[in-house]
């Protein structure tokens, strides 16, 4: 009985790993071809949140609770990166000489 439960957990962790990696791939596709800078920032935000989830999942898979600390630190860094990028995007385009057009790549 215990072994069956363990097997269920192993299967669930494998499925979740596959789904998370696929999700990260989709996020990277959007980051590569997002037409404007805010698109890329949204994709980056999603990918870092997925990395936090990945750390939590890996802590379950490996039985090492220390990876939860990694997840917390990664969440902190992700928030700072997103806010900094958002302010950078806003300021870079508002300050530019011919401002109004799009938020194009460069």
């Amino acid at each position, binding site marked *: 009985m215990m072994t069956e*439960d363990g097997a269920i957990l192993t299967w669930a962790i494998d499925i979740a790993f596959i789904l998370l990696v696929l999700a990260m791939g989709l996020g990277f596709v959007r980051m590569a071809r997002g037409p404007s800078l805010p698109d890329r920032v949204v994709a980056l935000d999603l990918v870092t949140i997925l990395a936090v989830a990945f750390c939590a999942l890996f802590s379950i898979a490996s039985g090492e*609770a220390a990876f939860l600390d990694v997840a917390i630190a990664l969440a902190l860094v992700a*928030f700072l990166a997103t806010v900094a990028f958002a302010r950078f995007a806003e300021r870079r385009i508002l300050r530019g000489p011919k401002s*109004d057009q799009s938020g194009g790549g460069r």
Partner: protein
Amino acid sequence: MTEIATSILVVAGALFAFAAALGVLRLPDVFIRMHASTKAGTLGCGLILVAAAVHFGETGIVARAVAAIVFLMLTAPIAAHMIGRAAYRTGVPLWKGTVTDELAESSATDKSQGTD
């Protein structure tokens, strides 16, 4: 029993995370994409963190997982707000099916009633 609960939480969280990524890839415009990434992404990540808390079941680890969830729920709306404001103010085009743009209407009336 704990294993079954952990399994369900893990798979549900991964499904939500995958749905968020699918939405970010497929939806038509920055603001609609943000709708997918912030809410579904936070829910998926939170479910997996809850699964970690259930799996280990020790006080310190549960506290850490809860701290991570609370932090995510505090920061995700702030980050989304800042990205949305940056996107709107830098003039990212809206989707052509957008029905209403109340911010543009209110700023237009401000300008027409203002000093200039």
